[in-house]
């Protein structure tokens, strides 16, 4: 149907949000998110404050028990270690890929992408097999006589860190790679032609230009680590658990929905603060404009 001239005039006069159907198009998604995501989250928030009257007791319980605070600290330590490890491993790889011939980079990118899209459960299971007491590493090392007795890697923090670093590494590599691809290497050549050594040119020119990628990847990995569940639950120990495992056990084992809600709210607030920082530092728009 053509818009008649009368219709156009009406459109021009009406407020902007009525003039285009954008909000109408957004409505179904917003309703889905509102009803099945935001509303349940608000319900959880409320549940953390009610028992059955308004109360702080769940939060008071969290604050007063050192073992819970210990879990929160451990969670942040693990998230920080995983972020650091993915940077140490991911940066050289992303740098290498960004400077390689496109064909070669494409082939090697497969090794980054395939794990990225393989089930977290499957990847964690693979590490359980690799790191177990009778696992592949221990069998190979014992067989070759390098170690006398099996190393304990499963159910230790080291094991959790290895597994989580493995699972989150692709996020870091992809975030760094997309920024590094855009760095003009002529700048490095220019720096070198002016007398900078290769190492100096890298640190003074390339590294600063790659920092947006570090910020994006680092924040993303840290956010995802904080709430990680599968890998620490399968590879970690009860004594060194993460807050996500605590939430799970409060619901599944102790049926304490109020306390579970309080724990989840604490984790949610930490996550949202980091997300707000991400929005400030990196910006959300870039996520939507980047070609996947």
């Amino acid at each position: 149907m053509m818009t008649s001239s009368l219709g156009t005039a009406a459109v021009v006069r009406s407020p902007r949000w009525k003039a285009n159907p954008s909000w109408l198009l957004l409505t179904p998604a917003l309703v889905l998110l509102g009803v099945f995501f935001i509303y349940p989250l608000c319900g959880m928030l409320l549940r953390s404050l009610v028992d059955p009257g308004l109360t702080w007791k769940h939060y008071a319980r969290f604050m007063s028990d050192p073992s819970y605070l210990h879990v929160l600290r451990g969670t942040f330590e693990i998230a920080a270690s995983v972020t650091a490890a993915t940077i140490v491993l991911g940066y050289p790889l992303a740098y290498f890929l960004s400077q390689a011939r496109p064909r070669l980079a494409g082939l090697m990118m497969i090794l980054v992408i395939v794990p990225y899209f393989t089930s977290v459960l499957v990847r964690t299971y693979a590490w359980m097999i690799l790191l177990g007491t009778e696992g592949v590493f221990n069998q190979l090392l014992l067989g070759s006589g390098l170690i006398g007795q099996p190393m304990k890697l499963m159910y230790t923090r080291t094991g959790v860190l290895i597994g989580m670093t493995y699972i989150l590494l692709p996020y870091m590599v992809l975030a760094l790679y997309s920024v590094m691809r855009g760095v003009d290497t002529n700048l490095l050549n220019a720096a070198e032609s002016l007398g900078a050594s290769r190492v100096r040119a890298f640190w003074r020119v390339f590294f600063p230009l790659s920092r947006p990628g570090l910020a994006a990847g680092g924040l993303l990995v840290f956010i995802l680590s904080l709430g990680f569940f599968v890998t620490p639950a399968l590879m970690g120990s009860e004594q060194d658990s993460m807050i996500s495992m605590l939430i799970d056990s409060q619901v599944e084992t102790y049926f304490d929905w109020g306390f579970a809600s309080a724990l989840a709210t604490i984790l949610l607030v930490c996550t949202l603060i980091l997300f707000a920082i991400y929005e400030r530092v990196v910006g959300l728009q870039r996520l939507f404009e980047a070609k996947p």
Partner: protein
Amino acid sequence: MNQRQVGWFVRVVAALVLLFLALPILIIFPLALNSSEYLRFPPQGISLRWVSTVLGSEDWLASAWLSLKVATLATLIAIALSVLTAHALVRGTIRFKQGVYALILLPMIVPHIISAIAMFFFFSTVRIFGSVGAISIGHAVLALPIAVIILSATMQGVDQRLEDAAMSLGASRQTAFRRITLPLIAPGIASASIFAFLSSFDELLVAVFMGSQGSQTLPVRIWSNVTFQLDPSIAAVSALLVIVSVLALVTATFFTRRSRTA
């Protein structure tokens, strides 16, 4: 233009990291083809024993079928909504755009354990769906961000003047969308569907909390077996899942290539 010789140190580290990335995926296959009773490395003999055990097991097949149903339903919901959303975000002029972006990304950022228990509390008080419906809706919520991201990127690549031309020739907004935009973003819809499907197919926590004893999706069955099952059947399931992911990726890459050349 963007190529530079990198030093040997970077090359060695990059090679080791690539090895680190490949190793766990590759280790699954010899273990899945193990012929012995227990997980052994190196495998005692090569056979399809455990693969056929899994493929012949009613429990595993029921879970696979359930996962397929849930993922299909979740994908349909997520894609239908995200086509509309991406169109509004890319073509429309809306206020509070930042807020809408943030809201749509939220399910990707909020830890799954939180989304899962919040939905679990919600669905346990309002019994409006059976567990399959509830899991599918939960998965649709979680798949929405990735689908919107992919479709927004696709739609940015479509020349708006084509739609304008169609409308100037008398097509309504709806017709222009259906006849011009939709065919042009079809490859994007295909790859968004694949990623939405994979995200649901692999999702554990929502399915754990909303599922019942009789409705265990594939990840839930792996989850409940992984800690005590010592025989290589989980390895066989894992190997099959890796193959599914690789096939899905190959297909998605094919569609992405097409949308770039189109």
